[in-house]
């Protein structure tokens, strides 16, 4: 129903927007911008409408409870939000150093001839279907991590499929995104700046650090782009996160679930239950609001840094 509304809105909008683009560029662009905001608003409204039955039944408790018991129609999504936060945190902690390393390596260390090839290879890994990463996680990464972690004293990874496995897999998946943004920024450092850095006697390492500070806005941009990917990734995470949808855990070496993987895992049979579909939409709503909050924080930080 809402989908139809969107399509109906879309057609006159596109005609008007294209018309305006040619007549008055500024107003055309504004209209496009307004449409993007309206889309997000409508999407959030749709989640709210779809989630309404369970919110009407349980109130906000559905967002604050950790429970997933379809036999008793009892649902909560807090454990999934915790899983999303934990896997994203692991992923970002591992991915950012890798992304910085990739960006510096490509621009500083590799011979100019190889830069293009290496850069495109990194970009190519970003376009690999996520289900391939998922299969690799299922059969290679999960078992390997389990053996490694359990080799350490006190390392207790009872299953190959845990929040940690998902986090490491995500890190590998999102590194090219962050790396691409940082690399582009790094290549744009003006030549006079670079020459000035070397002129004051900086080593190559120090020069790289100074240049990275120079492009910190690109690093932040890459960070939030990668974070968005990590929070939303579904298929690959669903295959390796374990999927303990009823337990709240803060131990990353335990199985858990993220919001998007919970939706992917439970949606196919959700229609057999009265309140499961609304509960999954409540999860989607929570993820959207959480994502908006993260983005708002990102905009705030970037603006503050640019003073």
């Amino acid at each position, binding site marked *: 129903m809402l989908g139809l509304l969107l399509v109906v809105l879309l057609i006159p909008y596109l005609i008007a927007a294209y018309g305006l683009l040619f007549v008055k560029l500024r107003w055309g662009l504004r209209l496009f911008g307004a449409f993007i905001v309206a889309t997000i608003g409508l999407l959030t409204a749709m989640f709210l409408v779809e989630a309404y039955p369970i919110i009407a039944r349980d109130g906000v408790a559905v967002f604050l409870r950790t429970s997933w018991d*379809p036999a008793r129609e009892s649902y909560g999504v807090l454990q999934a939000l915790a899983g999303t936060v934990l896997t994203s945190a692991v992923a970002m902690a591992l991915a950012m150093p890798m992304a910085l390393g990739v960006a510096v390596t490509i621009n500083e260390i590799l011979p100019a001839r190889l830069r293009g090839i290496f850069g495109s290879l990194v970009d190519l890994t970003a376009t690999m279907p996520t289900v391939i990463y998922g299969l690799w996680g299922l*059969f290679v990464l999960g078992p390997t991590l389990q053996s490694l972690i359990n080799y350490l004293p006190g390392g207790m990874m009872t*299953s190959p499929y845990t929040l940690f496995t998902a986090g490491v897999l995500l890190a590998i998946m999102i590194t090219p995104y962050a790396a691409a943004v940082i690399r582009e920024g790094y290549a744009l450092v003006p030549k006079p700046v670079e020459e000035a850095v070397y002129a004051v006697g900086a080593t190559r390492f120090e020069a790289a650090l100074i240049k990275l500070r120079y492009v910190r806005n690109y690093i932040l941009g890459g960070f939030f782009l990668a974070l968005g990917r990590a929070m939303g990734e579904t298929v690959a995470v669903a295959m390796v996160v*374990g999927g*303990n949808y009823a337990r709240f855990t803060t131990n990353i070496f335990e*199985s858990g679930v993220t919001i998007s993987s919970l939706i992917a*895992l439970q949606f196919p049979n959700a229609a*057999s239950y009265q309140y499961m579909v609304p509960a999954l939409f409540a999860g989607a709503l929570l993820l959207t609001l959480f994502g908006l909050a993260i983005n708002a924080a990102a905009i705030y930080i970037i603006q503050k840094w640019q003073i």
Partner: protein
Amino acid sequence: MFTWSKTFYQVTGGKIQVNYQSIGSGAGAAQFLGKNLDFGASDVPMPKDKYQQVAGQFVQFPVIIGSIVIAYNVPEIAYQKTGKYLNLTAEVIALIYMGNITQWCDPRIKALNPGLADKLPCKDIVAVHRSDGSGTTAAFTLYLSKAYPAWNQTVSWGYTVNWPADQKAKGTGAKGNEGVAQAVLQTPYSIGYIEFAYWATNKDKYDQVGGVAFVRNDNDGKYYFPTTENVAMGAAAGLERYIKKYGAPPAPDADWNPVSIEFSNPPRGYPIVSFTYVFLWKDYAAEGYGDAATKAALLKAFFRWVLTEGQKPENIVEGYIPLPSSIANIGLEALNMVKP
């Protein structure tokens, strides 16, 4: 189902092509009711509330039998080392997934396995379950609900349940049969339930690290290994029990939820039995399908073939079990109820 449609396509000389897609049991039923599909298939019968909406308008019948094996990874007692498989009962399996039996050397496991008792290690059991909603979980939890009442009270059954072992012991999830199989093969001291067909093609791998359990049928007290014969015996016995209780075989247009409950934990044979059910409308014209007469005739031809020729061993995918003729006849009766 997919193999059937391929073979049927060849048998009919390429005239009739049946398209089948695997989209999940719940979705299959929902799409059938939404009339987006000509027929539906599901690992569980039409849910009761949905059945009531369209009672009498459609038929449902089993087309193939599946089963579930209990696989375990305990290197100390691996089949290749000891030549023995574990004996388990519904009670012990339920208590493991309820988080009450947490170690392999638990006296309740030892008592069932005198031959292996001194080799069972005192290691924590990792109970692996499906993380996605699945017909396999529904059949497995239905069996535990029927065979061990305490399970029914605390956990109950369905596509997804709230596993107490996740909270109280080392329970963990994995996606799909392949995920559970991989987790069990990879994780020492784990146990998991896997679709029979999935295990049947890879038996050796399981024997290296553990094996699959003999499961006791509590009704006759015997232990059964998951073989084609033992599962078929269970299915036939389930039907007998249904007839004894209700006086007649189940009608194709009746609610099949009580039927699936009678089939689970049958009087004899391997106790975990599941079916794949097919849904057909009784009157395709009345349901608003275009070209209803042709559609109904083709569907009837296809499923008549499935229930007769399709049940022959050469037409069945390895790991599935053909219907005993008593059950196949219910399907043939159902086809007669579909208006040409």
